[in-house]
C-alpha cells in the first residue's frame, strides 16, 4: 500500500499514518501530539494555503502545510459511519 500525503487527504475520511518522513525532530514533535506510525487520524478540514486540521487521540490538531507533506497516510475509511 503506497498511501498519499496528508496534505492530499480528503476531509471527513479516516486514515492511518503509514510513515512520517524526514528528521527526528518532526517525529518527536508529532509523537508528543499523539501522532505516530499506525495512529488513526480523522481529517476535519483541508484547504490549500492553510494547515491541515485533523482529529487524533481526542484532540483537534493543526499540521502546517509543509509538515503535512511529510506524513504519509493510507487505509481510507469513511468517517460518517
Amino acid at each position: 500500500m503506497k498511501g498519499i500525503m496528508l496534505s492530499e487527504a480528503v476531509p471527513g475520511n479516516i486514515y492511518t499514518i503509514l510513515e512520517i518522513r524526514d528528521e527526528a525532530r518532526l517525529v518527536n514533535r508529532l509523537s508528543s501530539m499523539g501522532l505516530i506510525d499506525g495512529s488513526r487520524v480523522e481529517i476535519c478540514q483541508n484547504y490549500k494555503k492553510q494547515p491541515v486540521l485533523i482529529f487524533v487521540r481526542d484532540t483537534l490538531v493543526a499540521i502546517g502545510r509543509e509538515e503535512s507533506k511529510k506524513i504519509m497516510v493510507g487505509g481510507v475509511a469513511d468517517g460518517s459511519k
Partner: protein
Amino acid sequence: MGQNEVQKKAPVIALLGQPNSGKSTIFNMITGSHQHVGNWPGKTVDRKEGEFKWKGQRMILADLPGSYSLSAGSDEEIITKDYIASGNASLVLVMADASQLKRSLYMLADFVGTQVPAVLVLNMMDVAKGQGIKIHTDKLSEKLGIPVVPMSAIRKKDYRLLYETIDESLNKKPIMKAQVLKSAEEKMQFIDALLEDVLTASKTAGNAFTKFDKRALSPVKGKIMAFGIILVIFLLSMIFAGIISGIASAVLMPISAVLRQLMENISVHPLLISLICDVLVNVLYFAFMMASFVLGITLGFNLMEETGYLARISFLFDHTMSKVGLQGKTIMPFFMGLGCTIAGTTGTRVVDNWGQRVLAIAMSWAVPCAATLSVVPTIAIALFGSGGGFLVIVSIFLFMFLMMWGVYKVFGNSLSPKEDRVGLIMEMPPYHKPDFRNILYVTFQRTFDIFWRALRVISIVSIVFFILTYGFGGSQENSILYRIGVVVEPVTMFFGLKWQAFLAFCASAISKESLLGVLNTLYGTGGSLVSSTFGAKAAGSAADISAILSANFTKAEGLAFIFAISFNMPCVSALAATARETHSVRWTAKIGAFYTAAALIVACVVYHIGMLIF
C-alpha cells in the same frame, strides 16, 4: 545561604504540564500575588516561582516551563527535565487535560519511571463533562499508584481537594509503579492500556471540531472574523488609553502648575523647577499613557489566549507568516504595533520560541506607532500638500514591509535558523470560559512591570537629555546639544538632516510625539527646548508648524526627515520593554543599532534621490 535554609523548611512542589493544560491558571490561583518571575541561569526562559500556605505550612510552587514532552531538545524541555532530575522538588504535580486525555497524558507517560513523588491533576473536568466524557478517576489512581485530583482550575472550591492531596502526598511520597517508557509507541500503549477501563465515553471529531470552528477556521470568513476581533480589541485599547491619558493630564498638569508657582515663590533655582515641572511630570504622563495602552491590549490578548481563540488566529495566518520564519499568532503583535510598539512587544510573549519571539519584536519595530503616525502626516502635508502627503504616507507603509524583509534577511537566520524551524504543529484547544480574576491579575501584573521599567528608563534618559538641552543663561544656543548639533551638521547633512532636524531625530527617542514641539521651538519663537521635548501636548498649533516646516525644510530634506523618524528605533520605553521581553540587552542593542543605521541610510538615499527630483 539564607535561601537554602528557607527551602529546606518549605517543600518545593513543581508544576509539570503541556501548554493549554491550565498550568498557569493553577499557578496564579494558588500563589496569587506571592510569586516572582526570573530567568533560568544562562537561559532566556522565564522562571516562575511562588509560595503559598496550607494549614500553616509554607510551600513553594515552581512552574516548570511549558513543553509538550520531556524527550525533545528545546531549552524549555531541557530545563524541565534537569529540574526534575535534580531532586529539588519534593512533589511533582503532573497536569493533564481531562477533555483530551488520550493525548494530554503524554507528559505523564514521559514522566513515568522518574523516582520523584507525583500527583496527577486532571484539569478541565467541566469541559470534559460538557462533552459527555466519563472518567473513573479512582480506577486511574489505583492503576497508576499515585493520587489523581479531578478539578477545574477556574473553580475555587476545587482547590481544597488539591491542597489536601498535596499535604498527604508530601508525607506518603507516592511514586508511580511503571518502568521508564522509551519509545513513543510504548508511551501510547501505556496510555491506551491505562485508559481502557477508565474512559468509558470518549470524544468524537464532531465534539472537537464544532460548527463555530468550521466558520472560525475557514480561509475567508475566518480571517474576516479574526481581523474584526483584532480591530475591536485595538480600538477599545485606543479609547481606553485616550481616557486614561486624559485623566492623567487633567490631574498632572494642574499639579505641575501649582508646583511651579510654589517653587517660584520660594525662589528655587529655575533649573530645578524646569526639571520637575517640565521633565518629571511629563515623564510620568508618558508612562501612564503607555501603560494604559499596554493594559488594554494585554487584556485583549489574555482573553483570546484563555478562551482558546488565539490558537485559531495562529492557524489562520500560519501560511502567510511562515514565509518569514514566524508563527501565525505574530500577526497580532504587528497589528498592535500600530498603536504602541510596547504593546506589540509585550504581545509577542504568546510566541513560545525565544528566537522567533525576538525576530517578531525586531520586525514589529518597523510598524509606525500611533505617535509616529500622528506626526508624520502633519509634516508630509505641510511640505507636499494633501495629495503628495498622502503618497508619502503610503510610501512609508510600503517601505515598512521592505524594512521587515530587511530585518528578516539580517537577523532571520540567526534567530530562527531554517533547520530549527518547526512548522505549525499545534492543538486547537477546546473553547472554554476564561477566569476573569486570573486574566485581570496577569494583565495588571504585566502592565505594572512595563510601567515601572519604562518609567525608570525614560526618567534616566530624560534627565540626561534635559541636561544636554537646558539653555544655560536662557537661550538654547547655550545648550550642550546645540553645540554638538552645529559641529556634527556637516556629517548629518549628508543624510539630509540639518542640525535642527538631527536634534529632533534624537529627541524622538524620548517620545515620538515630541517631534513637532521640538521643531517648533528650534525654528519658532525660541522658548525652551526642554518644555517642547517633554510637553508634547503643548506643541505649537498645526498652522504654525506648517509654516515653520515649509519655511525651513526643502522637499528633499523633509522627505529624508520623515523616513528617518519613521524607521528610527522606537522610543526608549519600547527599548526597555524589548530588553524585558527578550531577556537580552545585547540583542536589543543589536536591533536598535540596525534600525538607527537603516533609518539614516534610508534618509540619505531618499535625500539624494529627492535632490535629483525636486
